[in-house]
């Protein structure tokens, strides 16, 4: 702990803050930098307004629950905050700046300082800002309705915020570790893609079984809800809400136990984060270059062998397809959707419109070609420009390959 606030560490924090500030100022020298900043300000403004609206809504909800003595329903407000905090980083990943702190490892930076900087950067994430605004709304609502609970509410919500911050950073640290290697990246990519595909299948499955739903007895529904409540009560949002509810009822020991449980979750997330960052700090390398060197000597059988420039481009397209999980997914997913949506034989809405919707979905992949079929080539496109062949010779197999693949 002492090394985290030593004179040297404080000097490093100041240097880092100044460096970030200078980088921001320098980026404003270019038109692109100005546009990027404007886009970022707009994005943050939009999300802040969204957060403010949610925070006000949650605040009113919390005020109502606290005023009516229905604090047992508090988890209904806290669970959405958890989902918001954990899922927002995925949604905003494309425009949020990613800071790679591993560049600091060559400097005499202690592990404590490294960990602290990692967490501080997390504080400025959009997810943390949104989550913080929502929790501030809940805090305001609860404290306005029951001011004597201010200490308990503050403790529970701060612990919940700390848990969320540690959990997000922990998930991202481990995702970074998995995404750093091609094999794990592909496995993770396929898991995500099948999850997305699975989510798309939920709707037809729901409609198919909607008849059974009405037959579900009231007692079975109540039993299911009780089970869900028991499970959620031992999870962080349930523990945070439970601590406040129990404190309001005068059960301080139970409230403390709930806070302890929440602290344990935060500690577990922090420990997993520490484990990952410690490995990074000690110089774990996830680079694949050496493996690639080793594997480069393995000669594969000639699966594709075409002559001429058209054949060369087709061969390249096929190799790209074979090595890309995303492309394979976009090749297979429409067919699966066609199969699923085209199965209905009755007169229902889903059966009548399933096939046309599936066909439209299948054609969706082609729309990308309208814009820029060569966009994915990256710097390799220069080779096409340098090749002593007409550009249509390149475009023909490129477009054909992609259309056939669709």
């Amino acid at each position, binding site marked *: 702990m002492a090394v985290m606030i030593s004179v040297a560490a404080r000097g490093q924090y100041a*240097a880092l803050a100044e460096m970030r500030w200078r980088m921001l100022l*320098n980026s404003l020298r270019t038109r692109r930098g100005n546009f990027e900043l404007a886009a970022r300000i707009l994005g943050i403004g939009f999300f802040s307004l969204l957060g403010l609206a949610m925070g006000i809504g949650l605040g009113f909800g919390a005020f109502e629950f606290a005023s009516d003595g229905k604090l047992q329903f508090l988890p209904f407000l806290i669970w959405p905050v958890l989902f918001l905090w954990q899922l927002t980083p995925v949604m905003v990943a494309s425009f949020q700046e990613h800071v790679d702190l591993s560049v600091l490892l*060559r400097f*005499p930076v*202690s592990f404590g300082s490294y960990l602290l900087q990692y967490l501080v950067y997390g504080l400025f994430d959009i997810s943390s800002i949104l989550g913080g605004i929502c929790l501030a709304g809940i805090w305001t609502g609860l404290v306005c309705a029951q001011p004597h609970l201010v200490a308990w509410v503050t403790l529970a919500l701060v612990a919940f915020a700390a848990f969320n911050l540690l959990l997000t950073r922990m998930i991202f640290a481990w995702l970074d570790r998995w995404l750093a290697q091609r094999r794990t990246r592909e496995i993770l990519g396929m898991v995500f893609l099948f999850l997305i595909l699975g989510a798309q299948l939920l709707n037809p499955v729901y409609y198919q079984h909607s008849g059974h739903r009405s037959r579900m007895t009231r007692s079975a529904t109540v039993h299911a809800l009780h089970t869900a409540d028991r499970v959620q009560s031992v999870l962080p949002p349930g523990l945070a809400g439970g601590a406040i509810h129990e404190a309001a009822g005068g059960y301080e020991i139970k409230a403390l136990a709930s806070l302890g449980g929440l602290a344990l979750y935060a500690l577990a997330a922090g420990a997993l984060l520490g484990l990952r960052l410690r490995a990074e700090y*000690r110089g774990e390398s996830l680079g694949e270059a*050496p493996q690639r060197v080793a594997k480069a000597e393995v000669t594969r059988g000639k699966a594709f062998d075409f002559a001429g420039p058209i054949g060369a481009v087709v061969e390249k397209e096929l190799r790209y397809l074979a090595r890309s999980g995303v492309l394979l997914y976009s090749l297979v997913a429409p067919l699966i959707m066609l199969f699923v949506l085209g199965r209905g034989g009755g007169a229902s809405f889903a059966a009548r419109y399933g096939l046309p919707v599936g066909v439209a979905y299948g054609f969706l992949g082609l729309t990308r070609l309208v814009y820029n079929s060569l966009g994915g080539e990256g710097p390799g496109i220069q080779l096409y420009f340098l090749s002593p062949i007409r550009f249509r010779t390149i475009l023909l197999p490129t477009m054909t390959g992609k259309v056939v693949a669709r």
Partner: protein
Amino acid sequence: MDTPAISTRGLTRRFSDFTAVDDVTFGVAPGQFFGFLGPNGAGKSTTIKMLTGLLEPTSGQMEILGEKFGSSALELKRQIGVVPEGMALLGRLTASEYLRFVGRMYGLDRATTNRRTEELLDFMQLANEPKKLVTDFSHGMQKKLALAAAVIHGPKVLFLDEPSEGVDAIAAGTLTTMLQGMIHRGATIFLTSHVLEIVERLCSHVAIIHKGRLVANGSLEELRAGVAISLGESSNQKLTLEEIFLNVIGAGAGEPAQELSWLS
């Protein structure tokens, strides 16, 4: 006997089933200009990353200035300077901003950092473009800046990974002058380079790594004599470092590479 500036024993690094550095043992005396050579993919950069604490060895031991990485890691990092493989520059800063940042990260006070920044920029002939961002620098300018950043805190041991790559003759001369000056003032320099003329001119000792294993280690004279004996030539015939290198890694022996007869 002086404590070696750098010493390794059985240093090994594996990536899955590939061994990048295999049981490497050597020592570098204080004040030595040490050349670490090897073909592409031989394990030079991996070794430098391990020696600078950026990569954890799979097994083996290493000491810098008699200290092991671990409990002394912070103190060691203050004593060493490094120009890493990718240079690790921050593109959206100017050269002086970058050097000031690096100086402060190494714990130098503002006055010292500012003074050394000015001196280094002048010495490296980078002072005449104060507003230019690092990302807009040429490759050679970036190399000079990376070297300036590696020495701003006055390291006792300097690790240079291909410092002369992409650098023009004028800049190479500047770098050479600076490095020789450091050696005269007692610093130790560990250098990897593919430009064997530079290594031959600067380094007193050389080690050669090939496919992860250390295949030669000694002073230039020792290596020269060893190769001359293996070739059966008289010792007074002076072999160049290139000839020594090619013989040691086995590329100089046997059939010459087949010519590409279709090239006009």
